[in-house]
């Protein structure tokens, strides 16, 4: 079966050459001027070589529709262009602040250095502050989300959709803690617990000294457990969101626009005269499992290559279309390619040497603290910390089970997000500058995360809040 497919591809080359416009032969590097005529002799030789190569490749075992073996035919990739817009600018409808004084996934030395364990700020006298002011500050969403994102804090907070990532503080005033402990815990909890999830509210500039004193005064008044009115108010009783919409029904999921659009783009000829359809006339048959093997280590770009970046580089090399990452055509085709692999089991390579190293880097990346809020991925997405709990009204998922529905339509944003855009937002949401979507760090992270989902099946486009 595989032999015939390889030969069919070389036969298609010959047929299309008759139209006077030449799709690039597989494996050929470098650029030919568009529309350059091919001498007859070279054409015959190329077809013969292609046929022999097809036979050779066909002798390797077929596994899940892919050729496994050293001599897999390489898809042409444009290596001489940036896969996303330059200069990289944050999306216009995202928060505009820049956080260059804090770590990103690419910069690990930007944030102020952490304090040494035990290096507390000495507070000799009792803290005087205004509890009413303190309550306002504790409840204030604009200060990096505020305390109630993770903590319940007394009866007044019962109707505020508090989170439960962190301990309920409603009786903290009775817990025998010193003023010095309260102050330092808010200023920079790392002096007590270097592994803490608690953001360094003072050290990273969210609250001033006087404000923290007001907050301490408020917390000291909290001495009675709170009573929630309804199950929705209580993060320990709130029903966990369950997605049950039919994401593949275009009348339910607006994200299905991508499938129509991709089919339309598939036959549009690019600057070099070819369309995707020139080599991939039957996408449905050819890509039943391809996307389930992505992302993958790609030596030619010396990093992990995801579907979206692949679409840019491969389309540019073969058709001339410059479908930049995060553009409408790129998104449509990337969604379509994954959609064609719906039902296929995710199976990414993390055993070959460079892939194994990339996945290990991806794992380490999940432990890296970034942003003004000083969070690592695992702070929210590991069940031993924040996963399967609430941040205000948002449920935090675990690392396994998210990838299969990306790219997803987001009803709260009215657009499709792929996994790279999701990574970018995770950064911005915790006040860390995002990287361009094709960043090597995102690739490592995507490979590691996808490997955690090996065995699960794609269901794309998804639909989520």
């Amino acid at each position, binding site marked *: 079966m595989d032999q015939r497919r390889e030969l069919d591809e070389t036969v298609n080359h010959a047929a299309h050459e008759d139209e006077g416009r030449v799709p690039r032969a597989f494996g050929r590097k470098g650029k030919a001027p568009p529309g350059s005529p091919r001498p007859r002799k070279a054409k015959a030789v190329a077809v013969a070589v292609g046929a022999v190569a097809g036979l050779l490749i066909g002798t390797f075992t077929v596994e899940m529709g892919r050729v496994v073996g050293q001599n897999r035919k390489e898809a042409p990739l444009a290596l001489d262009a940036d896969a996303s817009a330059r200069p990289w600018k944050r999306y216009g409808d995202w928060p505009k602040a820049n956080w260059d004084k804090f770590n990103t996934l690419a910069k690990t030395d930007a944030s102020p250095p952490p304090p040494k364990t035990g290096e507390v700020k000495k507070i000799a006298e009792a803290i005087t502050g205004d509890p009413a002011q303190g309550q306002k500050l504790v409840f204030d969403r604009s200060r990096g989300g505020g305390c109630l994102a993770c903590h319940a804090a007394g009866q007044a907070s019962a109707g505020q959709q508090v989170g439960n990532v962190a301990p309920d503080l409603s009786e903290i005033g009775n817990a025998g803690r010193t003023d010095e402990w309260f102050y330092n815990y808010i200023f920079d909890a790392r002096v007590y617990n270097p592994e803490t999830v608690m953001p360094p509210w003072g050290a990273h500039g969210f609250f001033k000294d006087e404000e923290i004193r007001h907050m301490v005064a408020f917390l000291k008044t909290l001495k009675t457990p709170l009573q929630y009115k309804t199950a929705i108010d209580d993060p320990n009783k709130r029903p966990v969101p369950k997605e049950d919409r039919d994401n593949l029904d*275009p009348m339910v999921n607006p994200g299905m626009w991508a499938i129509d659009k991709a089919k*339309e783009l598939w036959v549009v000829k690019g600057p070099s005269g070819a369309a995707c359809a020139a080599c991939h006339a039957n996408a449905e048959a050819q890509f039943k499992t391809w996307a389930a093997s992505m992302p993958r280590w790609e030596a030619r770009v010396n990093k992990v290559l995801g579907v979206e970046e692949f679409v840019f580089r491969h389309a540019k090399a073969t058709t001339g279309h410059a479908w930049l990452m995060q553009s409408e055509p790129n998104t449509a085709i990337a969604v379509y390619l994954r959609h064609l692999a719906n039902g296929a089991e995710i199976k990414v390579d993390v055993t070959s040497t460079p892939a194994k190293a990339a996945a290990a880097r991806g794992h380490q990346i999940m432990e890296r603290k970034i942003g003004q809020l000083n969070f690592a991925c695992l702070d929210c997405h590991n069940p031993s910390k924040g996963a399967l709990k609430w941040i205000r009204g948002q449920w935090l998922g675990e690392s396994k089970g998210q990838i299969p529905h990306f790219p997803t339509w987001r009803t709260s944003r009215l657009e499709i997000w792929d996994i790279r855009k999701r990574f970018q937002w995770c950064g911005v949401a915790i006040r860390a500058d995002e990287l361009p979507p094709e960043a090597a760090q995102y690739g490592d992270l995507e490979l590691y995360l996808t490997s955690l989902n090996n065995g699960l099946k794609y269901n794309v486009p998804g639909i989520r809040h």
Partner: protein
Amino acid sequence: MATPTPRVRLPAKAKKGEVIEIKTLISHDMEMGTRKDADGKTIPRKIIKQFVCTFNGKELFKSDWAPGISANPYLSFFAKVNESGTFDFAWHDDDGSVYKTSSKIEVA
């Protein structure tokens, strides 16, 4: 933009007097007429400006759309059916094109 694909979903059978839901969807980029291209020239407006549904030739539902209309708009509405027949749907484009589809219903 390829020729817009209209889709319609309604029950194949219904009882006399029943209220049914008619779901419609069409793919269309809906160019507002205020965006500018890379050279700074305004991209001309091209939207679907009217949607009409008739039943057995009689107008049942008509809607005029303006540039704020969503791309790939989903529209659903309800109709009371008293007899068998054919629903005809037409989407009228700024450029004069009309995209059509029909659906039959059997009413017992």
